[in-house]
């Protein structure tokens, strides 16, 4: 799949932002006043910034409001509804914490559930697609949620939780990669089933339909070299999990925490790039690309 920068930025930043908002909603840390304002500002900047980035890849962003209508069937629509509901609920909770020094438990809890619900919907947009076997697993939402909650714990300064959640997210990432590498072969979709000619012999793409490229090839036939994939996976693991973990184990300092956050973001962005770049869409079979 084509790794569109807008979608990589969106899933990375929004995931982290909603992770932080979820922690804040649960009262970790139970901050008030200006400190609460700073925490909520960071959470909103990440979550809303990501959401805005996601509209850049739309053909008609001016019609984006229509996307709230089909929540009964569409995970993308559910994501939109959940994100707006989460942002509104957390705004109410945040206002209480900032202006009145109050923590309204129920509103915070609802906000946290909606924040994580948004991340779950984002992941389900990918996990629902039978056309991309690497994505079609409940490990995908598990991984997205683990990354969001771990990153959120880091930003919220919940170091004890982060020390547990970072290894968990890293383990899920490795499990997701291992499963994903065999997923396409396991799906049973081949050029033989794609053409219905597989029972007659070995099918080979002889001639493409056009001499030039097209939307399908640009969008779905992107493939990343195995050598680079291994390098990028190591980088994602190192920056995203190992380095932040080492930094938070050390005695607390704001500089180290900042480095941990930046490193984590870079690592997650690299793994998110791979999430798209390594994903093989079955339509590539028709073009002899798998």
């Amino acid at each position: 799949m084509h790794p569109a920068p807008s979608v990589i930025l969106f899933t990375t930043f929004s995931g982290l932002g909603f992770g932080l908002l979820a922690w804040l909603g649960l009262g970790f840390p139970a901050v008030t006043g200006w400190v609460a304002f700073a925490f909520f500002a960071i959470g909103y900047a990440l979550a809303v910034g990501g959401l805005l980035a996601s509209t850049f890849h739309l053909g008609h962003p001016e019609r984006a409001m229509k996307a709230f209508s089909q929540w009964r069937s569409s995970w993308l629509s559910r994501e939109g509804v959940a994100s707006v509901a989460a942002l509104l609920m957390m705004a109410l909770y945040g206002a209480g914490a900032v202006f009145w020094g109050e923590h309204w438990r129920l509103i915070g809890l609802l906000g946290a559930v909606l924040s994580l619900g948004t991340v779950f919907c984002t992941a389900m947009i990918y996990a629902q697609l039978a056309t991309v076997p690497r994505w079609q697993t409940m490990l995908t939402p598990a991984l997205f949620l683990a990354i969001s909650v771990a990153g959120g714990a880091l930003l919220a300064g919940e170091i004890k939780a982060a020390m547990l959640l970072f290894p968990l997210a890293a383990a899920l990432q490795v499990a997701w990669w291992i499963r994903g590498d065999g997923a396409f072969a396991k799906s049973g979709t081949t050029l033989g089933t794609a053409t219905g000619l597989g029972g007659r012999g070995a099918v080979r793409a002889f001639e493409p339909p056009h001499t030039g490229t097209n939307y399908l090839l640009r969008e779905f036939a992107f493939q990343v070299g195995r050598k680079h994939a291994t390098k990028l996976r190591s980088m994602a693991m190192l920056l995203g999990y190992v380095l932040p973990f080492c930094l938070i184990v050390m005695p607390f300092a704001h500089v180290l925490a900042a480095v941990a956050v930046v490193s984590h973001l870079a690592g997650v962005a690299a793994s998110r790039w791979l999430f798209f770049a390594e994903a093989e869409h079955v339509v590539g079979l028709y073009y002899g690309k798998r």
Partner: protein
Amino acid sequence: MTSLPAKTEKKLGLVIDLDTCVGCHACVVACKGWNTENYGAPLSDQEPYGADPSGTFLNRVHSYEVQPEAGAAQLVHFPKSCLHCEDAPCVTVCPTGASYKRVEDGIVLVNESDCIGCGLCAWACPYGAREMDAAEGVMKKCTLCVDRIYNENLPEVDRTPACVRTCPAGARHFGDLGDAESDVSKLVAARGGMDLMPEQGTKPVNKYLPPREKDGMEEMVDVLAPYLQPVADEAKGFIGWLDRVLEKF
């Protein structure tokens, strides 16, 4: 509404005969022509006369080589467009309700004024039947020429999809695949029509007729063959001498 209808009154679709298709691409041209000049946003081209031309097409013809375990390889021309699936995954993922499947005839359509161009429906389609138009920023797909098949301004003979009307080999057929007594249903039954990627669970309405088995050579008797047998088993003259001399080394 992007939920799929439980049942459609008709299942209009195409039957494509892989045995007859000659790979001339006339259907591709007819489709591009009709759907550029009629319903919806035109099918744009980018750099059509430049170094890197590309464009939007609703129908593309691939060619595949099938190599059986024994015998000669076979070339199969393979037109591919929207299969108007019963369980169309492209419809349910649409966040705006722009994609829908019609209850009256089962045609899968895009309401272009509601499409935000997110591309998720193209991701959900295993067949590559949907293409985002680079100029319009909306998703384009086969409409089964919905503006021809019910169009009473056209002569009756033209009330079929443009690809079917133009096919010079008669490799494309249009009809109601939900009616077991229709010509297309009978054709599918007689020729063993098949689904593409049945494991994806999309239940395509369009069917493909597999190429017929090639005739064998076993039964053929050629009365002239005996006259083509070699007349001399042993080489004579200079060649014979050379053969004997070289054998000795």
